[in-house]
């Protein structure tokens, strides 16, 4: 299915957010996730099923003031 990951269109096998995180190579990293503007805690990723057109954000620590 086609979703949008961090602002870029992407094909994913899905079916869950946890699977997408794994597929994108972020499984073992320090990240936080949101789908369609809603925070999805790490423990809930495997229950969060993705659907066509979902906007997924995967955020990581970054410099800040």
């Amino acid at each position: 299915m086609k979703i949008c990951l961090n602002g870029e269109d992407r094909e994913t096998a899905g079916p869950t957010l946890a699977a997408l995180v794994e597929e994108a190579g972020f499984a073992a990293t320090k990240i936080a996730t949101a789908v369609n503007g809603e925070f999805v805690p790490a423990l809930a990723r495997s229950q969060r099923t993705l659907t066509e057109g979902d906007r997924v954000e995967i955020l990581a620590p970054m410099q800040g003031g």
Partner: protein
Amino acid sequence: MRDFYGVTLANPLMLGTAQYPSPAILADAFRASKAAVATVSLRREQGAGQDFWALIRDLGVRVLPNTAGCHTVKEAVTTAHMAREVFETPWIKLEVIGHTDTLQPDPFALVEAARILTEDGFHVFPYTTEDLVLAERLVEAGCRVLMPWGAPIGSGLGLNNIYGLRTLRAHFPDIPLVIDAGLGLPSQAAAAMEMGYDAALLNTAVAKAGDPVAMARAFALAIEAGTLAHAADPMEPRDMATPSTPVIGKAWLA
């Protein structure tokens, strides 16, 4: 020294982690500044996030994540939740930007977001203006720290409204106050501490100095000087001169 949600800082300086020439200079500047807190953010992972996180962890300082760039209550609240999970801290530097030129906070959204986050168990550090009524609303919303700006973020203009900042200090004797944003020079940080502020938060003044490590040390010294001066109970200024050398005993030489 006042505590910030139950945490006493070894040194009342919070230093930003952005805009340094290199990660090594960032680390050296942190050590030179003696900062006890590092501000950080969350952004889309593009490969550099994990190395950056390792660098910050090695500094051994407390982390204060921000909601920089958020313009709405929903954005700020969601970002705060994501930051709490990643950085494993209830601390959040709450920024809800209201104007893109001045980067000044949207006071209405700020109060609403502060209330929601406090109810969700966050320890909110609101980036605010020096407006007294807004500060009262933030305290009513549950904030136990206030972070008024000195001047717009990144401007280096210093303490734009000394009167307003002094009024805040007088009005909230028991709330820790952090001067946040707008500092360009160590003397400005010293002035804030002399006024009785509890900490200073800065980033650009150090990161964008020609020699960030030297400037970090300069800020460390200024903050120490300002803190000592406040504790020493400064004299009251007066309009007329008063001789410091004794008048009695002066020779008649005219």
